[in-house]
């Protein structure tokens, strides 16, 4: 703090501190505290608020634990998000490796430009593109029918559609951290492994992947968090049988009319994401400072 005042003087230093405090206290901390407060209180008619029944309890969280359908959707969201992260990793890893190790600088520049174009377009439109592609009478079914791969159209909306749309939406969040990590690997190490007789798989397993561990962990963590918190992909590409936890939360707020329960569900989602993020980073020994680049 002293350094800040010494550098900018009392007036400016105070302005900067006030701005940062307004952000962290007013826009980050206070909303979250209020959400926790909501989550722990019962949903009461206005007359009872502040009355004897207005006490803190875990009943809203326990409601989630005891309500079979919601609980199942919660766990399904967790493992499906993990699956999204895994599939995205599989899709991105070879390209990230090629970009970092084999491509010429020019190829890398062009490929990165091509990769970023879909991501300048917003998530709703990207999902809409998949909505059109996967429609029952849409282009994908038409193409597969024409090729004779399938005999009758497939209903893609549902788990498969959500997986495809989410993987598509989060490619960059996976690709760039892995690319950055692999780029710092000396080519000579890969050559040494090969000269010593290691197969391609073994070289990746023993040399490249351990080196890129931090990047892989970062990519997986972001993809998981984005997938678990996504609303648009399950809403557009899902089916009644593939509901996502965020949709349940939305319903508590705007259809069920129980904000307290909705806040409790949101709190559970937040705790889940933070736990997964922090534990994964801890296991991969990644510093939080290196994550947000």
């Amino acid at each position: 703090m002293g350094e800040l005042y010494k550098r900018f003087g009392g007036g400016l230093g105070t302005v900067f501190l006030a701005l940062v405090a307004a952000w962290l206290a007013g826009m980050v901390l206070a909303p979250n505290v209020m959400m926790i407060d909501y989550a722990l209180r019962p949903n009461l008619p206005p007359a009872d608020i502040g009355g004897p029944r207005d006490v803190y309890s875990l009943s809203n969280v326990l409601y989630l634990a005891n309500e079979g359908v919601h609980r199942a959707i919660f766990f399904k969201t967790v493992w499906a998000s993990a699956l999204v992260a895994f599939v995205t990793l599989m899709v991105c890893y070879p390209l990230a490796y090629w970009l970092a190790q084999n491509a010429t600088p020019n190829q890398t520049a062009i490929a990165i430009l091509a990769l970023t174009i879909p991501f300048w377009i917003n998530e709703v439109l990207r999902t809409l593109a998949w909505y059109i592609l996967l429609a029952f009478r849409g282009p994908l079914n038409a193409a597969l029918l024409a090729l004779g791969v399938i005999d009758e159209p497939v209903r893609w909306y549902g788990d498969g559609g959500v997986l495809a749309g989410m993987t598509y939406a989060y490619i960059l969040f996976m690709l760039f951290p892995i690319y950055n990590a692999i780029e710092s690997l000396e080519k000579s190490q890969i050559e040494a492994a090969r000269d010593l007789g290691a197969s391609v798989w073994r070289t990746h397993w023993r040399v490249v992947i351990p080196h890129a561990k931090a990047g892989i962990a970062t990519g997986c963590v972001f993809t998981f968090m984005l997938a678990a918190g996504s609303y648009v992909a399950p809403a557009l590409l899902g089916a009644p049988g593939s509901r996502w936890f965020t949709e349940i939360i939305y319903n508590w707020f705007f259809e069920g009319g129980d904000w307290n329960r909705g806040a409790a569900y949101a709190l559970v989602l937040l705790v889940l994401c933070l736990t997964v993020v922090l534990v994964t980073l801890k296991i991969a020994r990644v510093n939080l400072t290196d994550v947000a680049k």
Partner: protein
Amino acid sequence: MSAADRIMKGLFGVYFVAFFVYLFAPLAIMAAATFNTSRFPTVTPWQGTTLEWFNALAADRGMWDALWTSIVVAFFVVLVVLPIGTAAALVLTSLHARARSFLYAVMVSPLLTPGVVIGISTLVLWRQLGVGGGVFLIVLAQSSFIICYIMLMVAARLQRFDRTQEEAALGLGASKFMVFRRVILPFLKPALFAAGFLAVLQSIENYNTTLFVRGFDTPLTVYIATKVRTGLTPAVNALALIMVAVTIVGAVTYEVARRRSVARRANIEEEQRG
């Protein structure tokens, strides 16, 4: 080259093509469907080529209102995030190592929070204060995490700042305010432009957070998503096509400008050395 190597190369080639088809086919189909007369946007079957969906888009009042709402939100988001993000970066770089890494973790935490949670927490706080959803809350909720990006971009630029410039200015009799205004801010200018641009994009594209705090206001992303449920026509594709086109032009321009500035910097360094 051994047989195994050749197989690997072939496999990679197939994967490489498949990857870029996966990346662009959905967008290409979405764009192409704009020109099909079919009421539901698709390319199969092709019922006839038309430009009428652009007219339908132009006549869609709801879309224009939504676009305007998004622009208003983005404008205020930029006003909020640039000063705060810059202040955050300056505060962060003026701290000592321990305090810095703690504050850093706090400052990036909104990036690790799911978007829906940011929306919900903002909504419940302000309901308690008697303020309902709408443009005001959209701006606040979006800003709370967009500031993180601004802070990171400004902090990255500050790392390359030579503090002796500050000392020189002070030595020449400039006040601390003058140093900030005439030395630090001009140095940060390119980063601030890039950050402002990113903030606008982030704001306009946001959906997950906005959905919860929008109240009765309808920004563009919400409007498009609602259209999908209530009656999607290729007019939405026409909008998407325009956005894709603007994006590609923007991305290519940005890349060309970036390459030029890299080349210029390399030239200057060359001259200084030579």
